[in-house]
């Protein structure tokens, strides 16, 4: 169960990205919305949602959204989630956002993240505005009926509270050490 409730402040972090840079949450304090998304390489649910997350970042980048994807899985048990594999995946898919490695799993634990993917959307004040799934359909993008993250981003960018603030994250469990 997540450690953050709606309205709570984001837990700060600084993590290495596949771009070779270190990324701190504070680097993005000028953004109107920041979506911290725990995800990974190996999980089919994470992979199924990748294109939709990329599209959301691209659609709202100019309006002030920043997606930060974090992989916290144990790469010893799941080698596809190692840092070199993360770099390769980001290149293959053309990730338009930083892909960060939480090797110690401290950040995932601090957020209380459980699944991949799992979204924590923060508003311009750094308060949690939405937590949960990207949308209501893990398999077929054309069958999506509820665009939870997209709708929440639009609300936050407009200075409103999302109408749906929390949904159940659907995906693989985070692979703890």
């Amino acid at each position, binding site marked *: 169960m997540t450690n953050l409730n709606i309205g709570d402040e984001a837990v700060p972090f600084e993590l290495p990205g596949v771009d070779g840079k270190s990324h701190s949450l504070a680097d993005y304090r000028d953004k109107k919305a920041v979506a911290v998304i725990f995800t990974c390489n*190996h*999980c*089919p*649910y994470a*992979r*199924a949602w990748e294109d939709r997350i990329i599209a959301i970042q691209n659609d709202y980048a100019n309006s002030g959204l920043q997606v930060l994807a974090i992989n916290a899985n144990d790469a010893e048990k*799941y080698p596809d989630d190692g840092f070199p594999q993360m770099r390769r995946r980001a290149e293959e898919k053309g990730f338009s956002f930083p892909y960060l490695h939480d090797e110690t799993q401290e950040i995932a634990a601090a957020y209380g993240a459980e699944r991949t993917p799992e979204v924590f959307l923060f508003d311009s004040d750094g308060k949690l505005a939405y937590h949960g799934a990207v949308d209501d359909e*893990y*398999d*077929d993008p054309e069958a999506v009926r509820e665009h939870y993250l997209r709708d929440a981003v639009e609300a936050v960018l407009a200075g409103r509270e999302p109408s749906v603030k929390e949904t159940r994250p*659907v*995906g*693989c*469990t985070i692979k703890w050490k």
Partner: protein
Amino acid sequence: MRVDFLYFEDCPSHERALERLRRVISEEGVRAEIEVTEVTSEEQARDLRFAGSPTIQVEGRDISPPPEPHYTLTCRTYQLENGRLSPLPSETMIRAAIEAATTG
């Protein structure tokens, strides 16, 4: 016809996959017994040749044999006919495996 449906509880697609399997079997009009097994250990995964959840075996054969199978407790990615990656096997995959077992 023997059909084994193997799943790992952590992976949420198993309910929808089982529903899809039952529907295709019904549509194909074949007599099949579906043995549903929850895989709970790495040892069981190896013994049952469980390549991730969900795994469907028709007459002992995986409906979409992975090129380099890793028999372990994990969620499974299927590459669909249109190239899309999915946590679910397609109806086409299931149907083809049933038809192959019926005619083979």
